[in-house]
């Protein structure tokens, strides 16, 4: 338990650090949301000043930070100037969609990567192994931006998939089964785009970890006992190779979030990405900071989950 408490505390410290860092950068930023109003001759400078005062922008930086911390404790995460509402509800809806996208991509990626990695490691040097490693190298060479654009082209040309968004216009009128199908159809292309970026990395790591374990003496002994190949690979070797893979899982959440930001924008998936970009262009300060905080939180949650899995899976960590 002390182990988890320490990890959690560490996470809280990191979040704190990130928030201070974003506030520092934000205070250095030239321009604000109200600059365009200042240009507008119909809005008097007094009105702009009053608005700034209302949102606390005329206060010095530490005061603003404390005000923001208070609003975080109220579950508001600051105020969005552009939407004229607390930032939290805006962010949470989008974060849910991002989570749906990244979680399905992660799940699918591991479901594919583990069998493929184990299979190629068991047949190291065979032609199937070489074809797989060549194709992972090619997949790594195609940037996800291009891939997303290519998939969009496919959708436009063939009409097999919807070309963006999360639901069809007639979504509200659908029955439950149809709704699920509709979202799944919209989910397909962004998930494929995300998969293409993560899958090759995962396959390579699974393969490398498995090869290392398959070389060890206990596997040779088990093989000598005549344990069937399938059982040997998945019951004996895979759990022994799991440790670095679980760490990789925690690590890959960050990469996935970054990739997803871009793919969401290109494929107009209503996740955090498009909202974040919009907020940047509008100089919607607290929405930007909220986006950074939420993405960090996701990342920390991923790391924490992998810590928990390591704790369950590895008795050595429990003993410490």
């Amino acid at each position: 338990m002390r182990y988890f408490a320490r990890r959690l505390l560490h996470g809280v410290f990191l979040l704190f650090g990130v928030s201070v860092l974003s506030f520092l950068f934000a205070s250095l930023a030239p321009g604000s949301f109200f600059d365009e109003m200042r240009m507008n001759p119909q809005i008097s400078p007094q009105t702009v000043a009053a608005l700034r005062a209302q949102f606390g922008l005329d206060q010095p930086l530490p005061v603003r930070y404390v005000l923001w911390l208070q609003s975080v404790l109220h579950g508001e995460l600051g105020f969005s100037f552009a939407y004229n509402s607390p930032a939290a509800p805006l962010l949470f809806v989008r974060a849910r969609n991002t989570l749906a996208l990244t979680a399905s991509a992660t799940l699918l990626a591991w479901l594919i990567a583990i069998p493929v990695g184990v299979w190629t490691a068991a047949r190291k040097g065979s032609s199937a192994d070489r074809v797989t490693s060549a194709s992972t190298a090619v997949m790594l060479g195609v940037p996800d931006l291009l891939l997303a654009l290519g998939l969009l082209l496919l959708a436009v040309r063939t009409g097999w998939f919807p070309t963006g968004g999360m639901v069809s216009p007639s979504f509200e009128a659908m029955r439950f089964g149809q709704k699920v199908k509709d979202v799944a159809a919209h989910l397909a292309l962004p998930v494929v785009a995300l998969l293409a970026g993560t899958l090759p990395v995962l396959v390579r790591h699974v393969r490398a970890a498995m090869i290392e374990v398959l070389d060890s003496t206990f596997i040779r002994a088990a093989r000598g006992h005549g344990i069937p190949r399938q059982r040997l690979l998945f019951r004996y070797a895979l759990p022994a190779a799991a440790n670095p893979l679980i760490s990789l899982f925690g690590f890959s959440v960050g990469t996935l979030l970054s990739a997803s930001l871009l793919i969401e924008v290109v494929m107009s998936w209503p996740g955090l990405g498009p909202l974040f970009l919009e907020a940047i262009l509008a100089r919607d300060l607290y929405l930007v900071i909220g986006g950074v905080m939420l993405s960090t939180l996701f990342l920390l949650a991923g790391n924490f989950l992998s810590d928990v899995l390591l704790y369950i899976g590895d008795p050595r960590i429990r003993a410490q």
Partner: protein
Amino acid sequence: MQRRKKLEGIVLVLAALHGVVLGAGFFAPYDTAAQNRALPFAHPTRLHFADARRKIHLRPFFYPWVPRAGVYGEYEENRSRPCPVRFFVKGTPYRIAGWLPARLHLFGADEPARIFLLGSDGYGRDLFSRVLYGGQISLLAGLLATGISIGLGLLLGALAGFYGGWLDEILMRGAELFLALPWLYLLFAIRAFLPLQISPAQAFLLLIVVIGGIGWARPARLVRGVVLSARERDYVKAARGFGASDIYLLRRHVLPQTFGLLLTQAAILVPQYILAEVTLSFLGLGVSEPVPSWGNMLANLQHYDVLASYWWMYLPGLLLVLFFLGYSALASALHERVGAVII
């Protein structure tokens, strides 16, 4: 031996690719800003070797595009006027490496015909020329940003590893903070807090500094690890016993050990940073028109009609893929080689 040959081959191919982009002025037939308003979104020019009477020519030729009568945006070949492709022609003036004036181009066509190897964009600008010149911006951004990251990482990692103590503690906590953030979000957030309307040159410098600056943490951690183990080696202790200064020790005995590691790291970072520039410019946060970069060229595809109708607007991306494949092959070859040397 074979491994060494492989590495040399990869380096050669990459050098050739960089050479083509660096010599964009020579390889590209037109200036990046030269517009042909009568030829928006023209298909890639078709090169022919056999003429209407089935006679084979050694010199390739093409039929210039003419707008199809009555339809907007469609073209047909003007069969009555074959134009030969001319090699080593005098054309638009340019400067070699931004300095030496020159007029010689690898190929071109007699005026007023236009040769569009990769088609043209909405202003009738030659995509092939723009892709090469755009590569200069994108590649330079990637290389310089990598230089900044590696330089910062080397400096801070060496300080943290060599002196240890509170400095080490602070620097490594900072590195953790930077590594904890999803880096594209971090990049965007920092870009968000910088001015939006700036000239392409300013934007370029800003991009390099931001992209390179936020990437310091990983190289710094790697350098610190190597320095930590190197500083305890017997020969380093011996040199210290002979009265060598810290600077001398670092320069002569410790930092050379990080070299292979940093080279591999650089081969990983360059394509990543090129992509960062491409992404930011793609979303309108980086280098903007009329200066071409791979990112803002691909940005045209955000318009539905361009995406659906003009497939050749994707072609700039192919060059990006070539560079990516080259660098990832380089990184894995270096990794094999350096891994064998260091450990």
